[in-house]
């Protein structure tokens, strides 16, 4: 062991009154233990908090997680590299594109390849739209929990528009598996681009509406200002990243610090606020939506340039060509004819790629992307085979959730609801 100084979490102001009841002078002895969750609607899924209460005041808070553990990391070790995409996308189900992107970038670095420029633009485009849709769910559910039902309806209304866009482009509303190793699975259709244009036109006024509803709303201010405060030092010690860290004054954003997919070539700002409370997080996420819109605009301009969306290398690229038929998206009839009737080599190649997939050189990488909740890391280890040896997902929700006790202990139980909402945890990512 070492004598080195440890990193303490600041204690702040005294958390509870001393044990003597002011009115009667008696020593208080009974506190109440209550379970909040795992089915409590305000815990964003299946989070369970064990709260020790003194009256309305939270004395201790113990988060209990694991109810949604599905073994995604273990599962990837039993599937091909390409199949891994469909597993990791289900971890943090509100930001699926970020999971897919982080995993694919990690595998691409092991392979030593880079997706074509147009695929990079499409990836940035989908991720920034996804950031807006994720923040909208935060706004809607967080608003609902504090009684702002109109905001809930507005938030889900606009998210639905984005869900339609995702469905138009990927065929699915969630769990898209759209970003693949080496690029994206299909190019964006014109109708999808038109829908995004429409969204960019409508959305600014909608965001203005949210601010008109909430910015100076006395109830919203009362419930959020000074609630769930987390200082920059505590946030860093607890590993908190993303909007919660930036709302405490630290301008940490992987898109700027270690750019990927060409983020250094886009013009956007990283909003930062100093107060570190729930209200600062609200204002910051609203600003982030506007910044994401700026990036989406730039992506659309760049997409006027046509080009491939998947690497040429036949040893990496998915062999099948997809098209839309009367029964949905499937293998293109011309491609099926080619492999079934024209070329035995093409059939063998198709069979090998689908059953074994790409072979990834041995090595390890830790690839980070900036998800709506912070640093999303993928530690991927290969032994040179057709399956990953280890895929570790460093999910920001998992790490950020450790800050809950610091944010709620010593405060009213009602504030715990606002504090959790402002942290925006997604249990699919926490438990994986």
């Amino acid at each position, binding site marked *: *062991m*070492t004598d*080195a*100084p*440890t*990193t303490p*979490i600041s204690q702040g102001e005294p958390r509870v009154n001393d044990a003597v009841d002011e009115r009667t002078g008696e020593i208080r002895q009974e506190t109440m233990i209550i379970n909040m969750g795992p089915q409590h609607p305000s815990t964003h899924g299946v989070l369970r908090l064990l709260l020790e209460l003194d009256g309305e005041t939270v004395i201790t808070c113990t988060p209990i*997680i*694991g109810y949604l*553990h599905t*073994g995604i*990391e*273990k*599962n990837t*070790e*039993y599937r091909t590299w390409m199949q891994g995409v469909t597993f990791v996308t289900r971890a943090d189900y509100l930001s699926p594109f970020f999971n897919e992107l982080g995993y694919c970038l990690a595998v691409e*670095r*092991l392979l030593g390849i880079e997706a074509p420029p147009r695929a990079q633009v499409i990836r940035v485009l989908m991720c920034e739209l996804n950031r807006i849709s994720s923040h909208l769910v935060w706004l809607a559910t967080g608003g609902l929990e504090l009684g702002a039902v109109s905001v809930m309806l507005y938030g889900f209304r606009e998210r639905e528009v984005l869900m339609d866009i995702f469905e138009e482009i990927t065929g699915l509303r969630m769990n898209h598996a759209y970003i693949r190793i080496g690029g994206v699975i299909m190019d964006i259709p014109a109708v999808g681009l038109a829908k995004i244009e429409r969204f960019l036109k409508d959305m600014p006024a909608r965001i203005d509406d949210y601010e008109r509803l909430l910015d100076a709303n006395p109830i919203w201010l009362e419930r959020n200002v000074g609630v769930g405060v987390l200082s*920059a030092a505590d946030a*860093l*010690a*607890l*590993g*908190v990243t993303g909007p919660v860290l930036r709302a405490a*004054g*630290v*301008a*940490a954003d992987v898109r700027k*610090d*270690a750019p990927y997919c060409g983020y250094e070539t886009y013009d956007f700002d990283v909003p930062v606020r100093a107060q570190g409370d729930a209200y600062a997080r609200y204002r910051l996420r609203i600003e982030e939506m506007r910044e994401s819109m700026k990036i989406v605009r730039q992506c659309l301009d760049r997409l006027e340039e046509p080009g491939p969306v998947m690497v040429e290398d036949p040893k990496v690229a998915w062999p099948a060509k997809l098209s839309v038929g009367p029964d949905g998206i499937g293998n293109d009839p011309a491609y099926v004819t080619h492999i079934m009737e024209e070329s035995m080599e093409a059939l063998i190649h198709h069979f090998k790629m689908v059953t074994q997939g790409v072979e990834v050189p041995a*090595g*390890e*990488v*830790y690839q*980070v992307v900036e998800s709506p909740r912070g*640093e999303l*890391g993928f*530690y991927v*280890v290969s032994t040179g085979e057709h399956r990953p*040896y*280890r895929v*570790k997902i*460093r999910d920001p929700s*998992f*790490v950020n*959730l*450790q800050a809950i006790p610091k944010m709620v202990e010593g405060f009213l139980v009602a504030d715990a609801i606002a504090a959790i909402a402002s942290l925006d945890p997604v249990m699919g990512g926490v*438990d*994986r």
Partner: protein
Amino acid sequence: MSSSAVARLSSLELAERVRVRCSDTVVSRDEATAIVDRDELLDTLVWLRDDDDLSLGFCSSVTATDWPGSDPRFWVVYELRSMEHHHRLRVKVGLAGDDAHLPSVTPLFPTADWHERETHDFYGIVFDGHPDPRPLLMPDGWEGYPLRKTEELGGVNTRFHGAFIPPVDTRTAT
């Protein structure tokens, strides 16, 4: 916390700087990895955190990998990040399969708390001095360490309508 004047170190420069203390530091795919003895772990992490050129004060992730039949069997992997300089370093500690314990880094990095609990759940590695070593993601009383390579996927006694669902690799029907 604004970005300081110190330039970001490349992975090669970073490795060079780290080698002052950890001779076994390698660079692969533009990532620097320092391999550290477990007795040296805490002192090294303190040095990496407090050295002005490195200031690797942010612990992103702690996890492990399992290599049965190899020595060491387990590698515990720490991903460090410098918020000031924007560089990253991986620190790895090798552990023998029959002696899988090492000091907890939670006193240095409070964020390591849940990471270490998760790693214990998954691999059975013991973090000595951890303040709260309860199961985190696995249920209380769970037997075995599911991410060890010796554990099958789905090798759980799943019972459904009286049927036993065998591990995935031993299923015959599709």
